[in-house]
């Protein structure tokens, strides 16, 4: 082996040694791993901005502990191996007290496993995997968003009251799509045994041309379609539904179809009459809390808050209140303080359930509609489904975790 090679490698190693002497930080440090590149940003930017809004408020008025909250972001670019490495970097090098993120379920689950090992609280802000607080849940992980099981059950709850019998299931062929579809269907069959499934179609994630699938579905003549798409698939499918006229022929449901993230980019081109569920709508409920939140968000960022803003904001509040209640920057004390905590939010009081660390959010069910006051569609005929109606019971979680 050549001398210079070895010397070179030695220099690299010494370099590592030199930079590794870092210092502990005074403020509360939150490390955020999320996807800030690609389609997912339609959701993740709002999480970050909502979180920032909460944190800035705390920092401006010296939060309960008298410490500032500092945060570091890492763009994992939807790659779980990189996301995991980044989480490790944040904990091992930056010594963050709290981890939060990410929209990618694979990353969320991997980081959750790491958080458990490192005994560092991890707030999952957008991944909808029901494994996070379900079978793979543990003391150190919290889910601030609804999960697929919850979303599916909530939708089934509302759909069971509709007259549709012959269903078709279609969706993005990945864990999220299947989980949503299974969530709706299993619950729907339980609530309304007469329903029948005519068939299923799955397409690859990122599919842009849905017309072939839609024509196949139309040929089967179902009463209703459960469309389990996520991310960019939401808008893509709605566009195709509009172009083929599907939206007028067969009603369909998409989780988050009524949500601003899906409707705003399409402007007035979005199809009307699409059923959807969402945890947050900036115009509903029409309460002072929500109005104040929307006003503040618009003042700061000059746009309407989407669903992610609520998740980010609530996480910021929980971090601040948790540490304030714990009385010191101690991860174990923080968890003891934050689990079971009830906080105020734009959608009312929210409880971070102690038994599985799942935030109990209300779910809104509605159908898309054009209105004169906005340059995009909004939800109408909104039904609020309270969390106790669709969340799995604590006993259920216990058996899942064994």
């Amino acid at each position, binding site marked *: *082996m*050549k001398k210079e090679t070895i010397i070179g490698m030695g220099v690299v190693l010494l370099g590592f040694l030199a930079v590794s002497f870092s210092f502990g930080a005074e403020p509360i440090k939150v490390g955020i791993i999320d996807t800030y590149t690609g389609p997912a940003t339609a959701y993740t930017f709002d999480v970050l901005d909502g979180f920032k809004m909460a944190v800035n408020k705390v920092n401006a008025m010296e939060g309960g502990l008298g410490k500032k909250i500092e945060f570091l972001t890492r763009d994992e670019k939807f790659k*779980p*191996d990189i996301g995991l490495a980044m989480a*490790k970097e944040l904990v091992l090098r930056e010594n963050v007290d709290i981890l939060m993120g990410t929209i990618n379920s694979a990353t969320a689950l991997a980081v959750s496993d790491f958080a458990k090992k490192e005994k560092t609280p991890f707030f999952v802000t957008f991944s909808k995997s029901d494994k996070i607080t379900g079978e793979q849940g543990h003391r150190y992980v919290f889910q601030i968003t609804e999960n697929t099981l919850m979303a599916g059950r909530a939708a089934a709850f509302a759909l069971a009251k509709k007259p549709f019998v012959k269903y078709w299931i279609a969706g993005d062929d990945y864990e999220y799509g299947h989980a949503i579809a299974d969530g709706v269907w299993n619950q729907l069959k339980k609530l309304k045994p007469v329903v029948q499934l005519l068939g299923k179609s799955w397409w690859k994630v990122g599919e842009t041309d849905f017309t072939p699938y839609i024509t196949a579905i139309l040929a089967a003549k179902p009463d209703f379609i459960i469309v389990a798409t996520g991310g960019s698939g939401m808008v893509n499918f709605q566009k195709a539904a509009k172009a083929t006229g599907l939206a007028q022929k067969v009603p369909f449901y998409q989780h988050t179809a009524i949500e601003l993230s899906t409707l705003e980019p399409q402007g007035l081109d979005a199809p009307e009459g699409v059923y959807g569920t969402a945890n947050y709508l900036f115009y509903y409920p029409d309460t002072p809390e929500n109005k104040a939140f929307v006003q503040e968000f618009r003042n700061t960022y000059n746009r309407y808050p989407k669903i992610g803003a609520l998740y980010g904001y609530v996480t910021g509040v929980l971090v601040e209140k948790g540490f304030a209640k714990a009385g010191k920057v101690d991860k174990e004390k923080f968890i003891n303080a934050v689990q079971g905590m009830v906080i105020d939010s734009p959608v009312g009081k929210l409880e971070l359930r102690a038994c599985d660390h799942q935030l109990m959010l209300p779910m809104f069910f509605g159908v898309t509609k054009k209105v004169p006051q906005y340059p995009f569609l909004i939800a109408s005929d909104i039904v609020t489904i309270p969390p106790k109606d669709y969340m799995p019971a604590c006993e259920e979680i216990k058996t899942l975790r064994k």
Partner: protein
Amino acid sequence: MATLNIRGKESWLVPILFILLLVFPLVLTRFYTYLLALIFVSGLAAMSLNLVLGYGGIYQFHHAVFYGVGAYGAALTITKLGYSPWIGFLVGPLLAAFISLVMGAICVRLSKLYFGMLQISLGSLVWAIVYRWYSFTGGDDGIHGVSMPDLIGSTTGSYYFTLLVTAACLIAMYLIVKSPFGSALQGIRDNPVRSEAVGVNVKLHQLVALVIAGFFAGVAGVLFIVVDNSAFPDMLFWTLSLEILIMCLLGGWLTFLGPMLGAAMMVALRTFASTFTEYWTLIQGIILMLVIIFLPEGVLGYVNAKFKQLGNLASGGKA
């Protein structure tokens, strides 16, 4: 030819480097220990590719398949079949070698770009299967929390395990490169027609090389499980394959240790660039572009050439 020679006067540096690496966890923080382990994993994957790319001249475009199969083979053996991790560690590389044998047997009749294209198509099929076989592979969520034996469960433990396995693999690969098989392989790289004419069964040698490379890539996949306790379908996606190719190229694909250096550069760059900018792929792309334009033989290749030029290498000559 730019290979490295251990017989020179500098051979004493190798044990010293190894001892340095052995004591690093005692002085480094856990993060740097982890980062080094990650570099070993990526580096081993890149070096296994370079066995066929740099030494064999085979355009293996989708090498990550074997890395991923190794990881999944181990992870599934441990989590789904419930065997001991040590058995999983064996199953991973063997499965990778087997997939490599099947894919190699199909692709090896083609050469250069056509080989690469067919291989990338086949590899994409393997990826698609892993990606959608929810009930078994966990689909796009991947597999998480693969439990490790206590001995190698900690950051330091996994570091030492990774270090030792990587070192063993490097020695084995070095021996192979220096063996008659390695000579024949380099002959095939330089001139397949002539190799055939001197009695070397080119396709068979290439196939064996592919299987060996697949095996070592599988070992790298297993080490990823050891370090990160997870397996993801992204490990089999074609973009990762190109990243591994880049590691070979950055470090120097005609040198033995170049890919390891390339991996160190890529991992370090990604880790540190991403701490101050979300545009780290931009930086990655620019560096890659500059290296291709100005250092076509990679960093280590360039350094070697410079030293040769300076005439400092009289003692490091080769047999």
